[in-house]
């Protein structure tokens, strides 16, 4: 018993260091959770949150009212899945490539170049995309398709290309950030492993396959699990700004967030808006729990909790 107490004592400074973060979490993430009740209320400013009358599930109705409910759920889920799979594979690949580079200078340059898109505001990104896709002045129509003698494509009214465009834009934008985390892990791997592997005659491919990838496994699983929790949220800027809010594209660009925005922009109904948020977080919560359970079944070490 006293041994245990001693152990706690040893860790006391660490617990102490945790306090600011914990306070931040409680104020910022836990207290506002009380607001979940707004989703079940007909909110009245004069009566306040607690005084407003209950309405049961009425606020949730608009989310499931139409055929759109299926479209927006599908879009949100499928796009996010694609982003997770493609984004992770590319980020890991690039992190490994960076690690294989010998020149420090080149490493720094590549890393910066890859990271820059992440730092650009999505509104600016949407105009960059417009620079490529604009019907009569865009780069693709003007400098590629026309010289090749092909017809211009009116990108903003043809939904067929957008699933690909959105994936490309998203991966291009977020690659650098994900890559940094994987790269940091790769750099932290024990170099003696590589040395002994090299002595044993393992080539570059073998070393990547047997040392780097297994070393990255935990990081990959953690990051994927965390993004799984957000598969029901969508990057509003990506789905609203980048397609320039174009009507004909809505079938492939409408996600839960844009649907809520378009539907409630005029209504300004707080109850309905929070109903949507509750729905998203609830599904995200369930998904994280089940994904984690699955991981724990397969490999206990890698699970989050």
């Amino acid at each position, binding site marked *: 018993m006293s041994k245990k107490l001693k152990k706690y004592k040893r860790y006391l400074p660490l617990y102490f260091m945790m306090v600011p973060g914990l306070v931040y979490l409680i104020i910022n993430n836990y207290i506002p959770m009380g607001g979940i009740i*707004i989703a079940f209320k007909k909110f009245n400013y*004069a009566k306040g949150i607690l005084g407003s009358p209950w309405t049961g599930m009425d606020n949730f109705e608009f989310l499931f009212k139409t055929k759109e409910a299926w479209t927006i759920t599908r879009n949100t889920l499928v796009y996010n899945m694609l982003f997770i799979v493609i984004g992770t594979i590319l980020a890991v690949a690039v992190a490994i490539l960076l690690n294989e580079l010998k020149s420090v200078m080149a490493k720094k340059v590549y890393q910066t170049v890859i990271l820059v898109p992440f730092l650009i505001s999505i509104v600016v990104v949407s105009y960059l995309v417009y620079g490529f896709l604009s019907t009569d002045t865009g780069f693709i129509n003007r400098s590629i398709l026309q010289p090749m003698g092909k017809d211009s494509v009116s990108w903003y009214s043809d939904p067929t290309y957008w699933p690909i465009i959105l994936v490309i834009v998203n991966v291009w934008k977020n690659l650098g950030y994900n890559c940094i985390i994987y790269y940091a892990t790769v750099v932290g791997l024990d170099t003696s492993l590589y040395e002994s592997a090299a002595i044993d005659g393992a080539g570059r491919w073998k070393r990547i396959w047997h040392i780097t990838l297994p070393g990255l496994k935990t990081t990959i699983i953690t990051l994927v699990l965390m993004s799984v929790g957000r598969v029901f949220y969508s990057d509003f*800027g990506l789905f609203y700004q980048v397609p320039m809010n174009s009507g004909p594209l809505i079938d492939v660009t409408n996600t839960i967030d844009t649907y809520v925005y378009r539907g409630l922009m005029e209504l300004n109904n707080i109850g*309905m*808006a*929070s109903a949507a948020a509750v729905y998203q977080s609830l599904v995200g919560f369930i998904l994280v729990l089940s994904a984690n359970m699955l991981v724990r079944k397969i490999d206990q070490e890698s699970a989050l909790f």
Partner: protein
Amino acid sequence: MKRKKFTALSLGLILSISMLAGCSSNKQADTTDNTQSSTTTQGTASGENTSGQDAYTVKILAPGDASTEDCQKVSAAASAITKEKFNTEIEVTRVGFGSYDQQVNLMLASNEKLDLMYQYCGNVTTAISSGQILPLDNYLEGYGKDLKEQISLDDWRCVTFNGNIYGVPSNKEKATGWGFAFNKEMADATGIDYTTIKTQEELEPLLTKVKELYPDVYPIVSNTGYCSSMTKQDDLGGDIGSLLSVDSDNTEVINYYASDAYLDEVKLRYDWAQKGLIMPDASTSTENANSLLGAGKAFGRFSNTKPGIEQEIAKESGKEIAVIELIPPYTTTTRVDIVWYVPHNSKQPERAVQILNEIYTNPELANILINGIEGQHYEIVDAEKGIVDYPEGINGANTGYLSLPWAWPNEMISYVWKGNPEDIWTQTESFNKNAIVSPAKGFAWDNTEIQSEVAACANVVAKYDHALMAGSLDPETTIPKFIAELESAGANAIIAEKQRQLDAWLEANQ
């Protein structure tokens, strides 16, 4: 633009703020009963004020860019007038349009003191049912006599919900016509007599000729993604469900998107787009039409019409502009579009109404609030005719207090800015008087009971309307889908509810 975390972030913010602020607002609900109290119970006057009221500060929120310093100067100048008369000081805060809605939302949620506010762009019925704005009936009797008299019964009806008046309509043009505004120089160069054009179809020869003469110019451009509809419908306060035409007595509520009038118009637009008369990507463009006109990239745009519209577009674009009126002016409830409200966080709503009444009727006070300080924000060019202009070195971009006359309660008692017709206010008055009045003018649509359908339909309309109006979609294949989706989103339920409310209203207001 930056409202991307609409659901999550702003909610959390509003929530935590309103929780921290606590709810001291229950008082407001019952103030309606003791409106007269402050004049009768407050005994002796203090010092210079002649009103017998105790001191109070009315905080006003208005849109438009202005620096805090200049707002303070304006507030001080305005207070000098109201202090003497009512023992009331005025505090003006102005917020740019980009963040106006958000600012209002925060102020309302946080219970920050606010007495008068300009048009709240959110939905009025939501604001009422969520208790954000106060009913004014009782205050208007005692404190807003002039308002009550000067504003027409029809206009009051437009802001009446469940039998209570919730806002004060601004005095400005309250009707709209629709037309085509274009670069006069280019039109003259075509040699076509455009003054005889009366309908949208008849524009085509002019547009074709312009395209021939100026191949690099788009004959028609959209304004931030929308080509206005040349329509005579009365949209009955928004959402789905309209009267087909304001100049008939038919009060059947229909789905305008399913009407022949809509079909014909979008067919024409599609045809024009195919012929290259409408700019490509018109429905996704974020460009302001007037800047495209100014840059010489555009020949014309569809626009609302009103007295002084030529000068307004000319001023913004820097080109000489002519306007052809295609739909004569008419007025509906939707056209009473700038309304002043008293929010629930006003401590003494009756004093707010009293000041609103004064701003509406006192030209001196109105001018200070609209135009700022003489010599600093404007100077008088012609005192007799009441014409003003910017002082030397000042312009719309660097003034500390931007003048937006229409955004204030009564622009028609304020100075006329140089460049407008000298008699613009008389013109506006006769414009209002001569406008066709919709049989449903005054009907105020209440969508509280049917918001799920409204939200779902708003999504469907966002998908098709802009693109159809810009001619980017083929109506033959699109319209049937559009209508089917609207119906599955509950459009018919909205229309039925609207018809029910309209019938009841017609019955009560015969």
